[in-house]
């Protein structure tokens, strides 16, 4: 059948199982939006306040559902506004497909109005990018884009479509999407054999798992494998939810703000199994001194992650769920409980560090929210102290229920991501923990949540400062609080109401409890501003450059 390029885009999205698009219209995507108008019975669209918010929403949608998130934006500023969102998705390997419009082919390369080479701009921050100049190429390009975004190690893909290609007509033939199979083309029998004997020889194994557990839906396989080999499980922040926080042998995070138990486990282990984690310096500390006493078995779907930061003794390249499943069957069942009992003792000895400072200590704030939620609640964070406190204290029990910008550390990620998560999970409660700094970066997006009538609870953990930077200034920069004391006197109740939502402002635990009860009964989005002390720290902490187990537990004020 003959269709316009824009109609073909819609057909291909539907073919891929897409039902929701986030975006913002503009000059070079009018054709796309005209087609969307026609397909509105099958494609839902969420208009954001800013394209960055739409990009984060597509990201939050993808992280919380496992399906690719789709975002539309116009050329020029619309496209460049996606950049931070795409970079965020790229660093955390999230499947997002961004479709942008661009100027007519006659104007291409002439610095025409709102013309930007977004194809080139996004080279370093996408898994791949395309520019489509002819309508005949649209269908196959969109299909490839979806395949690349989801296959192997996922990532964002950008498709820039010229205006003439959107408007032009061509023949369209529907096609069944190529199935996304676990990527095991480099999985070798020898590697599995060697890994098996390493595990069998080990008396004190530890598993450190990252975002790969979530991406490959390997959380159940991970726990079964851990039980089989008698290992405790530590997670990176990206891995949270990959092992239930209430699993008895879960030791919490490892690294800069990891637990004493995790660092003890890695310090004393004889085998560290790195599963779907890219060993960022936030995890390893000084990489040269990381776990040098232990053998390291690295399992990852991306061969480039093996030996990138930490030299591994052996490695297996393949889909994590597949590999863990194979290994679980091949390795011997561990019966000696000595090592695991040691872990339990450490867990008793070293409970989570939580500074009890101010009227509303962050630990108690997070727990007060947690006790009102169920384990399906999707927890979204922004970036900063509140993010790490949430990661440390909130018991995340299921995969895809903790959404946070790990690699890029994008302040302003949260509001958009929460909207995306809610759109993808209409039946679930979504809570955004944010900071006053982060929230103010993209608080405009609150209006999108209002318009969508989303019951998102936004908890502003408000210390009046850029707390994480302040903490570093306190520790390493002679308490020179250069430009980190905001103390903006924003009335969040009025702010929420002005946007059409509801707001609460609390200064004590008692006020917090009451406000939370009321917020839970409120229809539509709620901002709950909780004023906390400006000098609560994120602890423990491995100061940058330190060895991973040289943690500090207190920062003198």
């Amino acid at each position, binding site marked *: 059948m003959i269709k316009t390029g824009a109609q073909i885009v819609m057909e291909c999205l539907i073919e891929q199982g897409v039902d929701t698009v986030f975006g913002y219209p503009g000059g070079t995507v009018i054709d796309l939006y005209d087609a969307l108008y026609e397909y509105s019975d099958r494609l839902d669209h969420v208009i954001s306040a800013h394209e960055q918010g739409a990009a984060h929403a597509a990201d939050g949608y993808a992280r919380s559902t496992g399906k690719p998130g789709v975002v539309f934006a116009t050329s020029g500023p619309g496209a460049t506004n996606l950049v931070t969102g795409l970079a965020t998705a790229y660093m955390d390997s999230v499947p997002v497909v961004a479709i942008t419009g661009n100027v007519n082919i006659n104007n291409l390369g002439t610095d025409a109005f709102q013309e930007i080479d977004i*194809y*080139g701009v996004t*080279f*370093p921050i996408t*898994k*791949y990018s395309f*520019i489509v100049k002819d309508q005949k190429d649209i269908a196959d390009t969109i299909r*490839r884009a979806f*395949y*690349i975004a989801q*296959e192997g190690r996922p990532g964002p893909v950008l498709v820039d479509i010229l205006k003439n290609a959107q408007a032009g007509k061509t023949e369209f033939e529907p096609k069944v999407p190529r199935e996304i199979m676990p990527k095991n*083309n480099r999985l070798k029998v020898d590697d599995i054999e060697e890994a098996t004997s390493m595990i069998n020889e080990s008396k004190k194994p530890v598993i450190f798992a990252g975002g790969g557990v979530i991406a490959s839906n390997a959380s159940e396989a991970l726990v079964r494998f851990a039980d089989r080999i008698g290992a405790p499980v530590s997670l990176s922040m990206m891995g949270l939810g990959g092992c239930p926080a209430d699993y008895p042998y879960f030791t919490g995070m490892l690294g800069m703000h990891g637990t004493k138990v995790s660092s003890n486990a890695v310090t004393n282990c004889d085998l560290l199994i790195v599963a779907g984690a890219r060993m960022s310096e936030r995890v390893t500390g000084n990489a040269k001194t990381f776990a040098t006493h232990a053998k390291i078995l690295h399992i990852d779907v*991306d*061969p*480039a992650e*093996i*030996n*990138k930061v930490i*030299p591994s003794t052996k490695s297996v390249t393949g889909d994590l769920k597949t590999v863990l499943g194979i290994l679980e069957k091949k390795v011997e069942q561990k019966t000696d409980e000595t090592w695991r009992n040691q872990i339990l003792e450490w867990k008793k000895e070293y409970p989570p560090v939580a500074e009890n400072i101010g009227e509303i200590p962050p630990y108690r704030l997070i727990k007060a929210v947690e006790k009102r939620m169920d384990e399906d609640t999707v927890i979204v964070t922004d970036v900063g102290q509140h993010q790490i406190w949430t990661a440390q204290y909130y018991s995340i029990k299921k995969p895809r229920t903790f959404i946070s910008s790990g690699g890029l550390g994008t302040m302003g990620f949260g509001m958009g991501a929460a909207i995306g998560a809610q759109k993808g999970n209409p039946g679930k409660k979504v809570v955004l923990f944010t900071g006053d700094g982060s929230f103010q970066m993209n608080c405009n997006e609150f209006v999108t949540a209002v318009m969508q009538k989303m019951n998102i609870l936004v908890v502003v953990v408000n210390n009046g400062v850029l707390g994480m930077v302040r903490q570093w200034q306190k520790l390493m920069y002679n308490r020179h609080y250069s430009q980190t004391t905001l103390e903006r006197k924003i009335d969040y109740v009025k702010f929420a109401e002005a946007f059409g939502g509801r707001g609460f402002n609390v200064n004590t635990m008692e006020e917090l409890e009451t406000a939370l009860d009321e917020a839970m009964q409120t229809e539509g989005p709620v901002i709950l501003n909780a004023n906390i002390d400006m000098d609560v720290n994120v602890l423990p902490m491995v100061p940058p450059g330190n060895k991973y187990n040289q943690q500090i537990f207190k920062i003198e004020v």
Partner: protein
Amino acid sequence: MEKRYIYSLFVENKPGVLSRISGLLTRRGFNIESISAAETEKAGISLLMVEFFADEAMAEQIKKQLDKQVDVYEIKELRAPEAVTREHIMVKVKAEPDERMSLISVAGIFRANVIDVSPHSMIVELTGEASKLKAFIEALKAYGIIQVARTGAIGMIRQGEPHLEKEY
């Protein structure tokens, strides 16, 4: 210890590929010595050569990063004796009329060709391995080198065929 590496990459022949590959190398802090690209006898496929100095771990990382690019069909390291490599250079050398014969005989020793003679200079060209080119340039220094143009290294593995199956 750093040594010289040459990687040969079969890539999809389309705009932006060279830019994407060189951008990747720069971004990850790898220093490129030379890079060259040209189409092959196979439709839609270009052959790209990247030359750089690196230690073994870094070279391995470069290879993996390049290998996972969507546009890359196959990447191979070119190293003797399995592979032969060549580079082509042109050198413009100061040569007054009375120095020409001497310069021509030096060129002869290296089996280089004289391709231009101007009133005060000559251009000689030579194809060979990096070590031979280096020795040639050294020998020409005595006359005064005005300009050197090099193609960068190219090469191929002696036996076998490239494996060009598309992953994406």
